[in-house]
């Protein structure tokens, strides 16, 4: 996994509550057996005026001019500002894959759905939950200034605004450790293989019906 230390990038808005994973990446694109290539279909139903198909070249599709990411001022954005309960709905990891493939490294919102939040960390994307008032201030500052960029310093757990304000944020220490160092958590878990085997042996003793039935 790619590491996340300090990232500075243009912020773009997804200014609505309860953005679900169907909206982030519609189901027809979930038929892919790959992890990459979802970027052109991020927010497909909002971004284009027609219905997208998997495998299609999106360069000639009609764009929705009202959608923020289609506006020149948000070109190259890598920080997404969003509203409450971002990423609700399905467990599809295609949602963070699409955000990542588009170029987003960080999503800032008042709250996230649990599974999406978790999936982000597995893909080098940092989701940051801030109180709603702070998020609202960031939205207003972004709308007021073209090219509004934020610097996200994960080791210091601080967001730096163009006005020089430092906004502190919380992140679980294990997740931070994995993200900062770009660690593969399967490798880390396998360091506990002995403990897993011991647990498994005791578990089998307690509940033998959980083993060896499906084969």
């Amino acid at each position, binding site marked *: 996994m790619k590491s996340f230390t300090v990232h500075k990038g243009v912020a773009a808005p997804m200014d609505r509550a309860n953005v679900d994973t169907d909206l982030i990446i519609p189901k*027809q694109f979930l038929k892919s057996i790959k992890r990459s290539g979802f970027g052109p279909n991020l927010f497909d139903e909002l971004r284009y005026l027609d219905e997208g198909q998997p495998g299609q070249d999106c360069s000639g599709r009609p764009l929705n001019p009202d959608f923020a990411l289609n506006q020149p001022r948000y070109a190259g954005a890598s920080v997404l500002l969003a509203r409450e309960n971002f990423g609700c709905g399905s467990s599809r990891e295609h949602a963070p894959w699409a955000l990542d493939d588009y170029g987003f490294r960080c999503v800032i919102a008042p709250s996230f759905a649990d599974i999406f939040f978790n999936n982000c960390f597995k893909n080098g994307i940092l989701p940051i939950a801030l109180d709603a008032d702070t998020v609202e201030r960031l939205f207003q500052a972004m709308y007021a200034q073209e090219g509004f960029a934020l610097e996200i310093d994960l080791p210091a757990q601080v967001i730096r605004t163009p006005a020089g304000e430092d906004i502190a944020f919380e992140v*679980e220490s294990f997740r931070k450790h994995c993200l900062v160092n770009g660690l593969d958590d399967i490798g880390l878990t396998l360091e506990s293989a002995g403990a897993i085997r011991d647990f498994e042996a005791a578990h089998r003793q307690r509940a033998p019906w959980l083993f060896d039935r499906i084969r």
Partner: protein
Amino acid sequence: MAGQTLYDKLWQQHVVETRDDGTALLYIDRHLIHEVTSPQAFEGLRLAGRKPWRLDANLAVPDHNVPTDSAERAGGVEAIADPVSQLQVRTLDDNCADFNIVEFAINDRRQGIVHVVGPEQGATLPGMTVVCGDSHTSTHGALGALAHGIGTSEVEHVLATQCLITRKMKNMLVRIDGQLQRGVTAKDVVLAVIGRIGTAGGTGYAIEFAGEVVRDMSMEGRMTMCNMSIEAGARAGMVAVDDTTLDYVRGRAYAPADDQWEQAVAAWRELHSDADARFDRVVELRGEDIAPQVTWGTSPEMVLPVDALLPQPDSLASASACESARRAFEYMGLEPGTAITDIRPDRVFIGSCTNSRIEDLREAAAVVRGKRVAASIKQALVVPGSGEVKAQAEAEGLDRVFIDAGMEWREPGCSMCLAMNADKLGAGEHCASTSNRNFEGRQGFGGRTHLVSPAMAAAAAVAGHFVDVRNWQEETQ
């Protein structure tokens, strides 16, 4: 020390180790696999040269992409018309063969929607930790299990280590006491709960459903409720083990038998919250107060009793809710103040991991028996949740009831719940659907979903508009 909740007990029984920051390695008893969220995980194993930790913990079944049309289905994987869907289903077959994982392939009688198949085969059991790369894994919590959805990276992690790195959730008790009115079902109960706490109300919690209504409910009803915990934001929903649970599990293919059955039952009898257990949040509803529910907007929390009028956005509590409602009205092509019973579906879908079990089909069949689908309905699909459900329904003659009413009787799969196969809504079409999500575009580009119970969907199919099924006159045979 306060007693433990059901969730506390399930958690404690599966913790391998706890780290200083509160994260834990949680042991996973059952891992269910389907074709959409697994290919990248298997590829990850291959690239790292890893093997599954424990083969017998896994069970795979294709469901999201499979055609439900009988003719297309008859030809198996090779006959799937959409080449992209075909490749995904074929990839699951190949991965299961390569890694030696048991799979119920496309035309195996045991095939079906993964969350119907698991309990039906006894592959998911009380006391288990159950995960799957699918958010509706919460369904299996109805058995008194800790079950929740995971992403594809975690699918790979569970395959490789039999564990998840996770952190304990908070406890929420949703207690529904009293009695349900005639015609009101588990689907209406869970929609009413979502309407009460909102689509993010359960975020960070494991929900236990309890109370007189839940105790009186069948296992299949409990599955419907736990299934939609995720629509309330909670990854996991669950119900304590009781005689209803044990009666359901006994005799199923992968359930323990003989001496092991008695041993298992003794352990499962402990799977309930202690009388003095402490919950972080308690939500209470009265069964009598719950009317048949219909969603009108683009989030499951936009739900009302069937006899209500659509809300005025200005009357809503927050600016955000008001803005969301305006957007939903525009997308749905509806006006504030409209009576729900004046909404006219174009299509009807009875199926999905929420409502495709035999009791759901019986409930719908009772409503349409001897009647005809309204002329204004373009299509009414009935999609059984598994081959076993289909066979049972046909043995009871339910297929004839649906076909005689002008409905289509299909092969098992996820179908129009998420429209990854050919079953989908056209732009602007309204659907009375027994599925679980009414998000924009969920059932097809521009499609407009109304979530309801099987009985409500069936009644809407006959009437051509939503009706209060509490007043429905059923034909006697």
